[in-house]
């Protein structure tokens, strides 16, 4: 006897992710899943974006790390509400972890909820967390071959942020190649080139995010 299931293996996660998304939308919270390699500059990018927005954005952050509180402490230092998830060795966050973490966050008044995923280009790709937008950060020192080496995560992201571009003069990173590779995999995705160090490219990214938020969750007024 044969049972034809034809269902996604991670459908239980997907269902929970959809519930998360609906809950965030219901509270006018725009949720962004930020993925990238360890050290690609995710936390620094958040710090720079929040500084760029100042009072104009009320962010909260869920920090996902295998261990430690370092990134959460960095958010606390700049006064951003934060919950740290430690995955105890797991290489990605999943929707149930986000549901639990969100319970521990006061979301009233929050307009943007950022999830900094565990630094990993492989395992994070398959797990929808309930975000409205997925952004992949690729720091230029990592090399311009990463997009074709780890296609899944790039294929499934809404934007690529090339980070640390202040270092480009010291590297042989081909920005045009990275852009072309990304366009082949995710033709609809936006591509940004940013340096958190110099601030280059930050305003464009910040503006686009605000636009995306407005389009996804029009304010109550």
């Amino acid at each position, binding site marked *: *006897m*044969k*049972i*034809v*299931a*034809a*269902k*996604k*293996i*991670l*459908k*239980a*996660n997907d269902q929970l992710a959809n519930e998360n998304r609906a809950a965030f939308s219901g509270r006018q919270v725009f949720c962004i899943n930020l993925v990238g390699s360890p050290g690609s500059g995710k936390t620094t990018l958040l710090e720079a974006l929040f500084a760029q927005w100042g009072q104009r954005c009320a962010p909260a952050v869920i920090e996902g790390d295998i261990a430690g509180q370092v990134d959460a402490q960095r958010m606390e230092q700049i006064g951003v509400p934060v919950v740290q998830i430690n995955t105890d060795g*797991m*290489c*990605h966050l*999943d929707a149930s972890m986000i549901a639990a973490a969100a319970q521990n966050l006061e979301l009233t008044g929050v307009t943007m909820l950022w999830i900094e995923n565990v630094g990993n280009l*492989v*395992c994070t*790709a*398959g*797990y929808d967390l309930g975000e409205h937008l997925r952004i992949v950060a690729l720091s230029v020192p990592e090399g311009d071959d990463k997009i*074709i080496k*780890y*296609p*899944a*995560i790039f*294929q*499934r992201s809404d934007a690529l942020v090339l980070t640390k571009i202040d270092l480009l003069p010291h590297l042989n990173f081909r920005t045009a190649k990275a852009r*072309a*590779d990304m*366009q*082949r*995999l995710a*033709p609809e995705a936006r591509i940004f080139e940013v340096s958190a160090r110099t601030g280059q490219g930050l305003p464009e990214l910040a503006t686009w995010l605000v636009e995306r938020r407005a389009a996804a969750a029009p304010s109550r007024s």
Partner: protein
Amino acid sequence: MHEMSIVQALLEQVAEEVDQAGQRGRVVSLHLVVGRLSGVHVDAIRFGFELLSPGSIAQGAALRIDQPPARCHCDRCGAAVEIAEIVSACPVCGHADIIIRGGQELLLQSIELEDEDQAGEASSSDGWIHENRGSKEDPEGQ
């Protein structure tokens, strides 16, 4: 290695599907679909299954894993070609104006159960006992 979490989710899903179908026979085989660009390693799935399936409803089941290719669509020559791995130019005309789609499937396609009235009968060596029951499902369905 997230294949462990995937196998865990798979085993839960198999139990749920069998339960929903009101069945209780032994699981003889599982048919999975793992796209070439899914970032999921088939060897790691098999390894995880060996490790995690004992004691579960799928203990001893054979794994049949299809790995559908991705497709490369060329803007220049119009070719739509199946590709097993990522390319940066059209395999037909060599131009770089291409878009790569698909190959990301991660599906539990079907579950083969031992029929209860055949429960005593030995299944064939590879675990396939109903090859004749026309089962040409579309592996896409995502």
